[in-house]
């Protein structure tokens, strides 16, 4: 058939933040063979493909307007699990949720997890996702042993640190541009208990937030800071930090046999008596500058109910997946949705740069409603976002009225970040321009990436809206 894929059903497909939206043909292959056939047909029909898992990239990394979205989340079998070594071989449509529920009862936990358990491992690897422990264990790529990559040219290549090394380090962090992961082997982290020991530390301003990170890292297994992005003046950048460490079996009050079970890990189904599924509606009236100011102040003051340095036990799931407490929370941002902007800045410059970014966003009347501060270390993946420094994730509300001003703000913030030698993160991006990426990664890395793209995807089949935005001019002249 001459236009088989062009007749595939279409649907509205959005980024996680619902601010980047599209409609496209949508296919859900169940096997590598089917996927390979789609790659071949798409090239013949001149249709471009965005690979998509569960759609948790905030911006336009997994959408392709009026083109073809290929959802590989259905390719999600666990192929083998070595319970002695803690090594698991999977099809990469497996999600973080599938993974932890499978391995935790056997005393393992994914070494790196993002703030939600919904993403697939294919997406997590393509974005080289980091967790709240990046400074200690690196990104997910550091825990991938090998994988098979199906390229648009039709080859399946086994990649590891010894085989196809260059591709191994480029496909991880390559935001789905070089091929589709069809099999992946991961090394898991051994844990003795289902609990972490968590300590909360309240900070009065941005300087103190950084001081705590500098003082504590790399001792705890996890460290993350929630900061108030709306408050200004002397309190700007105040927040609550959480440090957490794995609990030895001997200190587990439930006993490891029980705390490692899935039942001990579930998130609460109701919060303050309200069913979780309805909570986002209650958040909606507060997601404006005034409302967030009140909520943040209340949250900060509530942390005073405990003395500073308060310690408690929390399940892995409860600590790791904060974004999953309120399902569909993104809808509380209203019709325009939200974008997340997450710059990564070298250690020495980070306090100044992040202070400037928060102040600039506030000055323009678009303060970030959520700020998350994390510590990072460099890694050896080609387009990695990580630097020896810090990242600040900023949730920014998008409305029909502020969209233009917000994009301008993003552009201005990127200039500040780049001047300080910073980088960005494709899973979160919505705002970058082509000249930003060259400056962020440098010509050598970027050219190496483009060369791999030309080799493994000569016809430019894999072309998301993000790729069109950032690579379009250089590769395809549009």
């Amino acid at each position, binding site marked *: 058939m001459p236009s088989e894929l062009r007749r595939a059903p279409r649907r509205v497909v959005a980024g996680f933040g619902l601010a980047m939206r599209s*409609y496209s043909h949508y296919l859900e292959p169940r096997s590598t063979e089917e996927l390979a056939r789609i790659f071949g047909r798409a090239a013949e029909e001149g249709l471009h493909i965005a690979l998509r898992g569960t759609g948790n990239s905030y911006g336009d990394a997994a959408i392709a307007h009026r083109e073809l979205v290929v959802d590989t989340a259905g390719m999600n079998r666990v192929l083998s699990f070595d319970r002695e070594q803690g090594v698991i071989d999977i099809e990469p449509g497996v999600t973080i949720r599938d993974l932890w529920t499978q391995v935790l009862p056997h005393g393992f936990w994914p070494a790196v997890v993002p703030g939600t358990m919904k993403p697939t491992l294919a997406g997590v690897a393509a974005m080289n996702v980091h967790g709240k422990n990046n400074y200690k264990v690196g990104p997910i790529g550091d825990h991938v042993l090998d994988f098979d990559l199906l390229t648009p040219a039709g080859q399946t290549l086994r990649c590891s640190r010894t085989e196809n090394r260059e591709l191994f380090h480029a496909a991880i962090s390559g935001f789905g541009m070089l091929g589709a992961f069809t099999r992946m082997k991961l090394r898991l982290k051994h844990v003795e208990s289902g609990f972490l020991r968590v300590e909360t530390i309240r900070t009065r301003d941005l300087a103190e937030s950084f001081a705590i990170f500098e003082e504590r890292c790399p001792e705890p297994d996890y460290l993350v800071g929630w900061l108030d992005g709306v408050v200004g003046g002397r309190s700007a950048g105040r927040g609550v930090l959480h440090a957490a460490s794995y609990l030895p079996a001997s200190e587990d009050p439930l006993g490891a046999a029980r705390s490692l079970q899935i039942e001990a890990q579930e998130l609460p189904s109701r919060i303050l008596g309200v069913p979780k599924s309805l909570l986002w509606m209650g958040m909606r009236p507060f997601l404006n500058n005034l409302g967030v100011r009140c909520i943040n102040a209340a949250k900060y003051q509530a942390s005073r109910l405990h003395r500073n340095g308060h310690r408690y036990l929390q399940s892995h799931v409860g600590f790791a997946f904060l974004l999953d407490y309120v399902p569909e929370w993104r809808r509380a941002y209203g019709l*325009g949705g939200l974008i997340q902007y997450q710059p990564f800045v070298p250690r020495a410059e980070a306090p100044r740069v992040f202070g400037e970014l928060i102040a600039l966003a506030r000055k323009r009347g678009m303060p970030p409603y959520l700020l998350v501060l994390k510590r990072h270390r460099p890694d050896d993946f080609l387009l990695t976002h990580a630097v020896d420094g810090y990242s600040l994730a900023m949730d920014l509300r998008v409305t029909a009225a502020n969209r233009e001003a917000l994009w301008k703000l993003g552009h201005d913030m990127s200039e500040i970040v780049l001047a300080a030698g910073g980088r960005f993160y494709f899973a979160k991006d919505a705002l970058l321009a082509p000249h930003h990426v060259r400056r962020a990664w440098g010509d050598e890395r970027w050219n190496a990436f483009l060369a791999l793209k030309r080799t493994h995807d000569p016809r430019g089949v894999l072309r998301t809206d993000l790729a069109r935005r950032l690579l379009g001019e250089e590769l395809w002249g549009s």
Partner: protein
Amino acid sequence: MKRTYKHALVIGASSGIGEELAVQLARDGAHVAIVARRAEELERVARRIREAGGTVFAHAHDVRSYESVDPLFDRIVDELGGLDCAVYAAGVMPRVVEGEYDFAKDRAMLEVNLVGCVAWMNRAALHCEAQRAGTLIGVSSIAGERGRRGAPVYCTSKAGMTAYLEALRNRCSRYGVNVVTAKPGFIDTPMTQGMSGLFWLISAAEAARRILKLANGRGRSGFVPWRWSLVAFVLKRIPSFLFRRSNI
């Protein structure tokens, strides 16, 4: 508040209410794409719009060629440079006489009035939901309120259209899309020419004006003109055992 549109699409614009809607949308400043089966009639409407100083793109297309909806829609959106209003006004009503059970006629009504509406409005809804804005107007009919002996499948097609548009409204309003169901009574158009027993007849231009006014609200469904809601109120309450004995 009066809504204004920048880029409008009217399906079934070669005569009647569709023609007048296209003309009025263009007069209010919208760039308009018009679609209909009869090329000469369509060209006449295009000329009328151009002569009034409007911008128009005409595409001859049979709404029953469902396969071509997708590419044509894309082309229209590119041509207009966007889309914030789509109207489905295509409809046929061949006469059905006592004792006639003509599947060909019945099928044509279902295909043009209902299936074509689903094909085009689905496509427009996809576009509008993704952009979180837009107005979709379906010209249904008061005929959809009851199954009448005189127009069995026409009533069926319009009842289907009314239900479909309601479902579309329930589906899309949360994404900022305004879905409007216009249910005209008797309108002076080629469709009603030669029919007996007409009353409260208004011109197609007047009907179009009232439909655009209806669309100024949010997610409205209404009779055109409003006084037909009184007729519908009574019509819907006539018990079946009486209705089947009547000549309505």
